[in-house]
């Protein structure tokens, strides 16, 4: 094992990648602030995706050339593990926001608790969750809310099921049953795609029928913050797993060498767990 740690000599992807990220961010800023420049944003996004493609491609190639050893494998594992931890903290900030608003801010504005004197400013305000009537009457709250027992429940089932099918696929890969692994991965992907479609339908209904919008006060704000970023993560997960499917079809991965697949699975399970939290605290309670 000594002396075999693979250190790539040079690579243009990191530098190109940061330029691409810069281009994308500048594009996004110009679009938001000045309302122009979607071309820059588009170019930047394509550039980021392209760099990711080529960079990961290099890694795959190196891996298949046998340049990586067990120590490299552990580096990837630590890297992915801590990356997921950072994602956990990202969502923790949002869940913390939801908690703070519901437990502290709204009751205070309504005259409850240690800082309840705030009610002086909002004499007509009554706290409730979901918050249908924000303190400032010029902000119109949602007219209705999404029932957790309809589309969100369906989506919960989709995601929980997909976690199970993905585990089956993973086990199959570990047993060397490539066709089985492939089939269950396809099922997982289908479930993930269904989730996204349902989420899209739900957003459409929220905007058009329920009046749940980004500017409908704190309920709409937290609703879209949490479900939106979760949905984005599901999208990333679906793309990742789709790439894994492609690699299985190309004959990559062996019984004991398939960390890319495993990392994708970790990520997918993480996204699933976040959804359970969302389902409970955004929809049910």
């Amino acid at each position, binding site marked *: 094992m000594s002396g075999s740690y693979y250190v790539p000599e040079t690579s243009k992807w990191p530098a190109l990648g940061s330029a691409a990220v810069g281009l994308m961010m500048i594009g996004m800023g110009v679009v938001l602030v000045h309302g122009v420049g979607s071309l820059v944003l588009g170019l930047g996004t394509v550039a980021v995706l392209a760099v990711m493609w080529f960079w990961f491609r290099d890694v795959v190639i190196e891996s298949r*050339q*046998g340049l990586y050893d067990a120590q490299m494998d552990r580096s990837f594992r630590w890297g992915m593990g801590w990356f997921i931890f950072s994602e956990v903290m990202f969502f923790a900030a949002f869940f913390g926001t939801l908690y703070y*608003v519901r437990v502290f801010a709204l009751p205070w504005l309504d005259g409850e608790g240690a800082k309840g004197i705030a009610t002086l400013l909002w004499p007509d305000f009554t706290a409730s969750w979901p918050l249908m009537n924000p303190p400032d009457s010029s902000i119109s709250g949602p007219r209705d809310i999404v029932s957790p027992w309809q589309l969100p429940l369906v989506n919960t089932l989709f995601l929980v099921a997909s976690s199970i099918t993905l585990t089956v696929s993973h086990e199959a890969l570990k047993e060397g049953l490539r066709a089985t692994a492939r089939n269950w991965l396809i099922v997982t992907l289908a479930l993930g795609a269904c989730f996204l479609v349902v989420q899209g339908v739900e957003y459409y209904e929220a905007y058009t029928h329920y009046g749940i919008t980004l500017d409908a006060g704190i309920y709409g704000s937290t609703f879209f913050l949490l479900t939106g970023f979760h949905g984005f993560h599901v999208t990333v997960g679906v793309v990742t797993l789709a790439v894994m499917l492609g690699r299985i079809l190309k004959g990559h991965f062996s019984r004991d060498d398939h960390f890319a697949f495993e990392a994708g699975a970790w990520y997918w399970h993480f996204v699933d767990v976040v959804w359970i939290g969302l389902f409970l605290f955004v929809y049910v309670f």
Partner: protein
Amino acid sequence: MAPKLPPQHTLEQSSATTTAGQAQEHDHHHGGPTGIKRWLLTTNHKEIGTLYLLFSLSMFFIGGIFALVVRAELFQPGLQLVEPEFFNQMTTMHGLIMVFGAVMPAFVGLANWMIPLQVGAPDMALPRLNNFSFWLLPVAFGLLLSTLFMPGGAPNFGWTFYAPLSTDYGPPSTTFFIFSLHIAGISSILGAINIIATILNMRAPGMRMMDMPLFVWTWLITAFLLIAVMPVLAGVITMMLMDINFGTSFFDAGGGGDPVLFQHLFWFFGHPEVYIMILPAFGIVSAIVPAFARKPLFGYASMVYATASIAILSFLVWVHHMFVVGLPLAAELFFMYTTMLIAVPTGVKVFNWVTTLFRGSITFETPMLFALAFIVMFTIGGFSGLMLAIVPADFQYHDTYFVVAHFHYVLVPGAVFAIIAGAYYWLPKWTGHYPDERLGRWHFWLSVIGVNLTFFPMHFSGLAGMPRRIPDYALQFADFNMVSSIGGFIFGVSQLLFIAVLIKCVRGGEKAPAKAWDGAEDLEWTVPSPAPLHTFETPPDLTSQAPQRH
């Protein structure tokens, strides 16, 4: 782990392109690209470390110039040089650049250079990711600095950017500022992941956790803090972005949000951030003091425990930045008690350093001078920190120059001095030459004088009632401010000496042997000076050796 599958078409296709070249190059280490391309494409931890350090140094000067604009305006009462709008942009940019652009990248640069050397690894665990982390920084700070030229000016709401001043009332450039922080945050997270993976996975055989040098330990814990809190910062600035551009009400009571929520989220990031900027400094000082006292560090294990305690406590004290926002009594008490507790592990560290000096055999080369000044002045900053922890007293200190004095004592003669000390300490390893001792001493003494002239009077102006972040002040603060401004310019200008030292040291000077300081013990001193581009390609085996420290 060798692939067990038969080669597929992908592999054939690939060998024709990139990797064939790379596999070949792998045998000729110095055959890579040259010139600017070498720096753009490098995956070498030493080169990337150098890039980080040079970037940090340039940001240090840019942020320093902003500080001097502030100090120049404050030299006398009245508005002389700049308008209040621009003054606010300067204080804001100074803070942001120094925190995110100078101090943090400097520590990451030192980590890049030294951690693989100190744990006996051939490179960082994920070398390409390492390069990506670095090159995100010029992009982020280019974007941040460009806001100075945007209509409405740069961010002007302080480096803490409290909502709603930064949301409903911020300049249009705020959106760009948010994106630049996002990029810098991604860079920090990826850099920290890399450092953790390196420390946990790349140690030479036989090096146990409790054998690691303290710089490695402190960085391990710092990296953990970074990964835990940078995403929270990303989250809160994303919420700002949405309040500004998409009509959400996170920080607006009218919609059911709360401006104070911003502060909770910000300081949940911000307080650990403060330790992110000081823990690696503890590590550096813990390397230098024993080296020049020629005596093992006293209480190695308690240093590790103290660092870990500080890290845990850092998640429990964020509200002490917010004692006057109006919180329930129980919250104020809880956070007062937890904040006071931090004094214990911090005190242990200082006691350990002092005891390390006791009955040593001490010499006073430049790195040691900076490290000793660190101990004294960081302790002064610690004392004022303890005073600030007492909630009733904090009601009088909060947001005055007393606070400015406090955190600058911790950050300038604290973090910055430690970075400079580390640079002097490791320069022989980097360049193969000793830094000029005479110039180094001049640099040290002028810095010490400048720093104390600048920041000591701020304790007084703060106690006398001068608020932070004001471009003009009442007449009774005039003398203090004049002294502070003179001190600021002395400190600022004397940093040019540091540049002179660096240039001289790179070009020549007394040749340094592998073990450049006779009291230095860690692994980096076993490789030649200057360290060749590739070191420890075969890891040193420490299993047979007696444990380093016990």
